[in-house]
């Protein structure tokens, strides 16, 4: 019996969302009196492996082969399944990030076990195994019992804190024996926006809507985001009008985010937009319309003109941060 956590990386850096998964897996191992094993596939920087050790995992397995850096969900999931059988893992933990969403179902099918995605808390393990997950786009929670011997979970990003209490862990290097012919998905191009904080991992998000009137006015959003170390996002009409790139669109049809702080500027708060953001821990709404539905979902709000309020906010934050 053991818990296997898949560690996901991008360009050699371990993703924050999988450090959360490792911390979750470690806490779960403590709860069940078993061990948590972290599995890293592909090259990652040493410093990040050290940080991973701090998450409290018992062992780290690492196949640093270059080609595992290319994401073929079939190849990666087969290595996870083999490792899982070898280590007699009965619980597999992934982040509910882009790669986790692709891998976890393949692994659950291959290992013939139940799966629950988008988990947000440690399970109840008193009688059976019951996990809490978000349903109805964050408008409710479901407690789901998993009855199979092997269980696969994906952990929603920003739902579980990263632990830093573990010690240094020796890394076991292994060779998964993957060859070029195993790859059926050929990655031909990767485009990552340089220097931006990925929305899915951002702790603070500053988001703009139609109230900003045009793309030329995005400076105030970007200035505020920069002062906060935040990522920028937008509502659907803004992305559809081409004011901002589509990957910034949050909402039901765009990205679902759950930062610690979501600041909505000039966004009315249509139910489809709320579906993408109501998992945020704290919501601030700035809108000149006091009747904007977003205020009902907000923790703090300012009824006022964004063009006056936002630059003053930015100045106050800069002052706070010295």
């Amino acid at each position: 019996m053991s818990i296997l956590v898949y560690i996901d990386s991008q360009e050699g850096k371990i993703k924050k969302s999988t450090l959360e998964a490792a911390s979750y897996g470690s806490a779960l191992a403590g709860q069940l009196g078993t061990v948590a094993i972290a599995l890293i596939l592909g090259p990652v920087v040493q410093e990040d492996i050290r940080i991973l050790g701090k998450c409290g995992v018992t062992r780290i397995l690492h196949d640093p082969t270059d080609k595992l850096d290319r994401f073929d969900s079939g190849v990666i999931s087969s290595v996870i399944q083999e490792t899982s059988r070898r280590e007699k893992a009965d619980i597999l933990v992934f982040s509910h990030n882009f790669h986790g969403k692709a891998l976890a179902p393949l692994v659950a099918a291959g290992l013939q076990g139940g799966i629950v995605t988008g988990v947000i808390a440690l399970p109840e393990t008193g009688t059976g195994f019951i996990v809490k997950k978000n349903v109805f786009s964050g408008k409710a929670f479901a407690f789901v019992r998993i009855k199979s011997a092997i269980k696969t979970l994906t952990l929603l990003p920003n739902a579980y804190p990263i632990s830093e209490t573990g010690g240094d862990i020796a890394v076991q290097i292994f060779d998964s024996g993957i060859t070029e012919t195993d790859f059926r998905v050929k990655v031909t191009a990767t485009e990552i926006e340089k220097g931006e904080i990925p929305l899915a991992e951002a702790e603070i998000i500053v988001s703009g809507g139609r109230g900003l009137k045009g793309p030329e006015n995005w400076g105030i959003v970007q200035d505020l985001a920069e002062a906060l170390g935040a990522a920028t996002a937008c509502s659907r009409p803004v992305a559809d009008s081409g004011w901002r790139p589509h990957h910034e669109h949050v909402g039901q049809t765009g990205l679902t985010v759950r930062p610690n702080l979501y600041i909505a500027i000039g966004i009315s708060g249509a139910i489809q937009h709320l579906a993408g953001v109501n998992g945020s821990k704290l919501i601030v709404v700035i809108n000149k319309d006091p009747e904007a539905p977003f205020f009902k979902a907000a923790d703090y709000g300012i009824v006022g003109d964004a063009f006056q309020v936002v630059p003053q906010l930015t100045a106050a934050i800069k002052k706070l941060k010295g």
Partner: protein
Amino acid sequence: MKILVCISRTADTTAKIAFSNNNTKFDETGVQFIMNPYDEWYALVRAMELKEKMGATVHLILVGDQQSEPIIRKGLAYGADDAVRIDSGSADPYFIASQIAGYSQLEHFDLILTGKETIDFNGSAIGGMVAGFLGIPFISLATWFELNGTQVIVRREIEGGTETCRVELPIVISCQKGVAEMRTPSIRGITSARLKPLLVIAPREAPEFTEVVRFELPAAKSGVKLVSADHPEELVRLLHEEARVI
């Protein structure tokens, strides 16, 4: 070219979320049910585009009870050729994917499309599990794809960007915004949908590994705390000292 589109029935986005039977059942009173938007706007509409462009045939599958038939008829109204409903009320991903994979094994589809997730259970597991059972590649969260002979060129979302890949058919793709242009069924489509074949078959033997024990609603927000527009610095103070998020 045979395309299978997996569709499901979900509560409408604007539905009031409430639970009955001691919070163990979703309260359907007054709730309108729709085709899961990701299945409809992206997977199904993209399949219709491919049908028109290259003469593919489009087949629908839904695992659900009789109440889902209006949803299937809507799918047929878009122009799908036929549909099959696997008669089961199960909500377990392993069970549902087993049904779809089992049916696909008999029919040999070149391309299997799903939406990225359902808007009620937010699972996102079906496509990957079907691919896993069939032993074929799975591309998740596609934002664009084109067919080129027996190859698919597909772009998918990754953290902070996109990745383009090339894969040989057959393949399972989960679709999201970007893969198809918006459209609605035509009047002719709606009229002819009634006459199209809708086969109902009994589910095959498969385990159900998960069950919802209960639901819970999030604690109600205590209400918005408004700060005067003349003193935005007060908001910064609250975020720093009271909420401690900055």
